[in-house]
């Protein structure tokens, strides 16, 4: 809510991440950055720009193009007392580094009986909309949310981008931050002083009584726009920004759906076996099940890779009018 009501210093999502890293590096010399072209180049999305000039090449490390090795190095550094922030240039490239993330970082604390920890932060620019085609546009967050030992967040606002990144740095566990590329330029209220947004808590972005729309990442903005349109026809949609996928804030979701009696989940990732499935299942298993006045509905990416052609690309992921249509159908069906 703060993003709506608080006094205003508006900066972009990219600047919020930049500020969080800058403040963390100034406060804790163990914190350092590892990634491709994050130094003089400033990162493919300019999120780390100039940090190398302020903190030097020893703490803003351009790696060779070697995602598997870089991720393993980040795990080892964290294990030995460092506080690495690893940037994948595109989340798609994490497909080269699943081994150290999933077999090592996620499991070391457990496999060693709690005698070691891997405080590692991984930043993953993801999503479509840039015309970069199938290998630079994926939304793979569901893979990581399926892995015990990892924490997974998906900030939808500049405020949460900063607060979740700082919270991730405090966390003694590996935390993955999925950042949607189209959000980097989005502006919003961001307090200058460091603050934390708790990992594992969803945010109520708009209260409503007729339907609960649960959205993540870029879809939060679209869901809010859709809620505005729905309001014109007298339908009050409640919009919840999931923020954290693992741990998942089941309480908030169940309470909301029990109240509104309808659920629409919206994410950009491919619909089938996506995170919307877990949310739908969670509700279908919960006490909210008996309160449902309509079937649950999911909107997700089309069952295809992201195409290059911009018209097709847009058609491959949910848009505002898709959300409006799906929500209206559920509300009417329930009436």
């Amino acid at each position: 809510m703060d993003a709506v009501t608080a006094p205003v210093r508006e900066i972009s999502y990219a600047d919020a991440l930049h500020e969080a890293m800058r403040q963390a590096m100034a406060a804790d010399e163990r914190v350092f950055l590892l990634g491709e072209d994050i130094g003089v180049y400033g990162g493919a999305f300019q999120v780390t720009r100039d940090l190398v000039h302020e903190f030097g090449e020893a703490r803003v490390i351009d790696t060779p193009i070697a995602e598997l090795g870089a991720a393993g190095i980040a795990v080892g550094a964290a294990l030995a007392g460092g506080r690495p922030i690893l940037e994948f240039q595109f989340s798609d490239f994490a497909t080269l580094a699943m081994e150290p993330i999933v077999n090592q970082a996620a499991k070391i604390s457990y496999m060693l009986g709690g005698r070691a920890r891997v405080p590692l932060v991984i930043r993953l620019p993801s999503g479509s909309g840039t015309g970069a085609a199938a290998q630079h546009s994926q939304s793979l967050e569901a893979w990581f949310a399926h892995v015990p030992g990892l924490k997974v967040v998906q900030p939808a606002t500049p405020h949460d981008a900063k607060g979740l990144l700082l919270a991730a740095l405090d966390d003694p566990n590996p935390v993955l931050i999925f950042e949607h590329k189209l959000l980097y330029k989005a502006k919003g209220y961001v307090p200058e002083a460091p603050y934390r947004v708790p990992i594992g808590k969803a945010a109520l972005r708009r209260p409503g009584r007729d339907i609960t729309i649960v959205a993540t990442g870029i879809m939060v903005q679209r869901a809010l726009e859709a809620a505005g349109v729905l309001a014109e026809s007298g339908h009050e949609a409640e919009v919840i920004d999931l923020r954290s996928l693992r741990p998942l804030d089941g309480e908030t979701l169940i309470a909301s759906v029990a109240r509104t009696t309808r659920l629409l989940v919206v994410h950009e990732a491919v619909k089938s076996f996506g995170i919307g499935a877990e949310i739908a299942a969670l509700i279908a298993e919960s006490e909210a099940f008996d309160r449902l006045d309509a079937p649950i509905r999911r909107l997700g990416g089309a069952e295809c890779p992201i195409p290059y052609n911009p018209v097709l690309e847009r058609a491959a992921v949910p848009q505002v009018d898709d959300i409006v249509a799906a929500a209206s159908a559920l509300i009417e069906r329930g009436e």
Partner: protein
Amino acid sequence: MDLPISDAPPAPSADEAGTALRLMLLIRGFEEAAEAAYMRGTIHGTMHLSIGQEATAVGICLGLRPTDLITSTHRGHGHCIAKGADVALMFAELSGKEAGYCRGRGGSMHIADIGSGNLGANGIVGGGIAIATGAALALRQQKRDDLVVCFFGDGASNEGVFHEALNMAALWKLPVVFVCENNKYGMSVSTERSMAVPDVAGRAAAYGMASARVDGNDVRAVRAAAFTAFARARAGAGPSLIEAETYRIRGHSRSDRNRYRTREEIDLWKSRDPIARFERHCLDEGLLDAERIDALRAAAVAEIEAAIGFADAAPSPDPATLAANVYAEAPEAA
């Protein structure tokens, strides 16, 4: 083991020289036109231009047969043209049109022309290295004496797949030739800052593989190294690694601010332009005269203009076909 360039090919004939120059001009023209179209807004997304690197793509592909295969990279327009693609269908692809090589689904980073033996560009750095090795394994299983050329960059040589695939290619003596286009940078990171050794060719020793380092801006030097490597591959003597030293004149992609290199360095390499250099050679050696060269230039310009016209006029894909070809149909069904 050094690749013996002793048994080099005969010097190019006038015809071959003409072909080489024509292809280099076509690549240069294509890249400049694509850049202009991007500025105009008729091409979106991003693109990686190979201006300044034309001699490597052409010098390698001159010695290939239509039935030989190549795997290309994100900087692949030159490879695609050199292997024999139609620039009109390429431009249509970059314009996202249904008539494009990938029906507008792939764009610059995934452009491919299976018909001429190009298995495709790749959005993943190093993504084609193992694919090329596997294709070579299949060719040998089919008892063909064709080979596969694998293009990749200096930055890609730091990826683990380079190590894994080159080891297996050498171990199994596969008909694949690895061609590293060393343009000094992987995006913003120079080879000095990304590699613990000065050259990529030296890494071939870790696999007992023959290698050579050549001037990638000299189409004749590239052609000579390729000639030897291809002969070895076709004879079953195993893979080779050719490192071609060249330079990318433009930024890495459309969003590059060139913060990591100097104007002087760029100007120095501009002075080593592979096309001007080869033209000079052809004139000096009397291989081609000025009129012929002018004619080739004019033809390239005309071909590119026709390609742009074709692409602009071509229809976009029907959104109803969004999910077409996610799965191939069974041959029976097809």
